[in-house]
């Protein structure tokens, strides 16, 4: 009897009211208007987004905790399943790395000696702040992640973001405790790069694929599959020599297989790379717009971390390609 009541109740659904349809059209119109404002990058949209991110970041930090733990368990299970093969591979890799370690040490000593002879100016160490990925941007427009490190930790818009494997992207919007990172695979990402030993220059262009394209290659470029790709430093937004990936060919296009696995990002470091070009992407506080990002008022080195999962240091273990004489 009761079951029949449910069934009948289920079938006797109410039709949408005419007022609901009217408000639907109104909200569709508002959405279109917002989309247009978004397209012209209106201040209103910028400040609105900043406020919501500031509110949402702590919630995501809490919610993503169990997800990260589950991911960790899953990854451990995968390692356990592929245990033997993985161990053998790691042993072989370790042997190779031991040899490389020795060679690197010899080269490092030699480089230090040469630098002393020619009185080379040392590159200043980069400060950095490390945070965890608490949210991933999904949709047709952006490939981005939200990090739980922000302006209070010294992060500014435009700073490069790296994982232990290589360049991942750059900060596009930073709140007090969170920073949106645009990944290199995103359609809006353009990074000046150098390729291989010949130092051929190109632009790494994101197109939504996990292997970004190499564009604006100069005529007669001699690029081979497997050539290393790293930042050229042109334009001033990225330091020179950050590792990105290796050249692969897909169809008729040169693409880059990234060292960093963008599908499995966890801890990422924001490099405090300060250049004059940064002012172009990190706006000054806008009069009448309190939510515009405020400038960092204290030196980066003096800012300390107060949360687990976030750390500040003055020198970064940046995955760089060693400098070669031209």
């Amino acid at each position, binding site marked *: 009897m009761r079951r029949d009541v449910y069934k009948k109740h289920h079938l006797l659904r109410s039709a949408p009211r005419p007022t609901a349809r009217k408000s639907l059209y109104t909200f*569709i119109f508002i959405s279109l208007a917002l*989309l247009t404002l978004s397209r012209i990058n209106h201040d209103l949209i910028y400040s609105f987004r900043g406020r919501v991110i500031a509110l949402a970041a702590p919630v*995501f930090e809490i919610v*993503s905790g169990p997800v990260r733990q589950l991911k960790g368990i899953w990854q451990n299970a995968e390692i356990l399943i592929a245990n033997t093969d993985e161990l053998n591979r790691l042993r072989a890799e370790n042997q190779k790395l031991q040899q490389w370690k020795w060679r690197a040490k010899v080269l490092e000593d030699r480089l230090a000696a040469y630098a002393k002879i020619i009185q080379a100016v040392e590159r200043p160490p980069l400060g950095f702040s490390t945070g965890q*990925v608490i949210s991933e941007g999904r949709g*047709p427009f*952006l490939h981005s*992640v939200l990090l739980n490190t922000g302006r209070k930790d010294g992060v500014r818009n435009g700073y490069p973001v790296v994982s232990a494997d290589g360049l991942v992207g750059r900060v596009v919007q930073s709140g007090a405790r969170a920073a949106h990172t*645009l990944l290199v695979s995103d359609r809006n990402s353009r990074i000046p790069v150098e390729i291989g030993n010949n130092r051929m220059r190109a632009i790494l262009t994101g197109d939504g694929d996990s292997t970004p394209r190499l564009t604006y290659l100069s005529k007669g470029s001699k690029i081979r599959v497997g050539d290393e790709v790293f930042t050229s430093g042109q334009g001033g937004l990225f330091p020179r020599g950050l590792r990105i990936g290796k050249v692969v060919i897909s169809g008729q296009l040169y693409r880059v297989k990234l060292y960093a696995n963008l599908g499995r990002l966890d801890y990422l470091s924001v490099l405090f790379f300060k250049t004059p070009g940064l002012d172009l992407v990190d706006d000054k506080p806008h009069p009448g717009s309190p939510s515009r990002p405020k400038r960092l008022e204290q030196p980066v080195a003096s800012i300390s971390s107060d949360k687990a999962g976030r750390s500040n240091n003055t020198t970064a273990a940046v995955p760089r390609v060693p400098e070669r004489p031209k």
Partner: protein
Amino acid sequence: MMAAPAFSLKPLLSLLGLIAIAHLPLGAPANASFIIPSIISALIFIWSIYEPDNVKPWMIFTLGLVADVISSGPIGFWSLYYLSVQGMAFWFGRNPTNTGLLLSWIGYLIATVVVTFLGWVVTTLYTMQSADWRPMLVGAGMVSIGFPLIYWVSGVARQAPPTSSNSPLLDEIA
């Protein structure tokens, strides 16, 4: 006497929960990035047909805005996308006999084709370059195949025992 149906938060909370899950760092491959948003659109479709009073357009609009902000995408895209799904559901739900799994499934297939194409057009116009259709197609395709499961799960939530406060029918029987 018939009591006014009580407002249910079930649709809103289920959709909000899914939007949160869609943006958690699950590490899904790029082509799978549209699966959870497609599940959300399927749920909006089902809730809008069966409980239109509990999924008001302003709620869908707000949920879309939340998704836009969290994903760092253009504000208004997901609102427009989800409202279009709701519009299709309202159009489909005008006829009270359009109910049951099979008809809902057909309705959703029509809606998903229209809205996915619309989403692709909006993306292309916004970026001024041909948008990648693969993730959209994968998401829409997989959720279209799995629609009966979503329908069944949402049905379990919908068929929670009605009380006299939210069921006009029980009032009538009483």
